[in-house]
């Protein structure tokens, strides 16, 4: 497999304006490795959420701090890691956005998005500071019956 084990890395300064550059690159990589439209859409969104969190909560918009996105194209999956240089956080210690009393909260759904759209998401504190989010999406497409079924699978329900 020509693309196996290949790596592409993108580094941006902490500005929301640059997120579109990241998602466009993500779309291109998804297309290159044969993700269908649905899979590309959800991967794009998970990456956006992760980068937005890195810019906003991690680096707190500090233009001196970068966000580093790394794509690793493996034979079975696309792996994406997003690293920031902030104080880090504990993802197990967050309000559940699906709890009825939180449903009307104006924020707090990004991590739910990421968990829903990717096959796996992990957070760890980087040994040299900041958070490192590692996400992966399988390359083998889920079994398809009809339009509805497929979307169902892609969002992980």
């Amino acid at each position: 497999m020509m693309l196996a084990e290949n790596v592409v890395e993108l580094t941006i300064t902490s500005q929301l304006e640059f997120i579109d550059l990241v998602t466009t690159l993500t779309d291109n990589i998804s297309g290159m490795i044969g993700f269908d439209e649905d899979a590309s859409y959800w991967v794009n969104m998970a990456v956006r959420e992760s980068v937005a969190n890195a810019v906003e909560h991690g680096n707190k918009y500090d233009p001196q701090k970068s966000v580093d996105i790394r794509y690793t194209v493996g034979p079975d999956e696309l792996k994406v890691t997003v690293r920031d240089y902030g104080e880090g956080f504990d993802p197990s210690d967050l309000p559940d956005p699906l709890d009825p009393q939180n449903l009307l909260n104006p924020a707090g759904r990004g991590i739910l998005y990421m968990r829903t759209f990717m096959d796996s998401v992990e957070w760890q504190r980087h040994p040299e500071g900041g958070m490192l989010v590692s996400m992966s999406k399988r390359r083998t497409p889920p079994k398809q019956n009809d339009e509805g079924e497929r979307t169902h699978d892609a969002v992980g329900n």
Partner: protein
Amino acid sequence: MQLEIRERAVGDVAILDLTGKITIGEGSVQLRDSVGSLLDAGRNRIILNLGGVTYVDSSGIGELVSRFTTTKNTGGRLKLLNLPKKIKDLLMITKLLTVFEIYEDESTALESFQ
């Protein structure tokens, strides 16, 4: 421009036709501002027509929720019209499908205000 918002009025109901992406930054701010101006003008019967919306990130979903709440707090209502499949998926994932009043055609949405 990420998001385009056109305003229409049918009787005392304001319809915002949205096209594009509601995302963190620009798109969310535009939505907040548009609904804000309506409310400032005392127009709190609002339909958001999402038929042309292709993408709503978690910040955009949050913005929809906020505008829903703000409108309600003035005694008005904010309803959603023409949800594309993917946006409906997103409201399902976030358990907001039953929070919003959602319509599939404009006349039914308009009648619901009577």
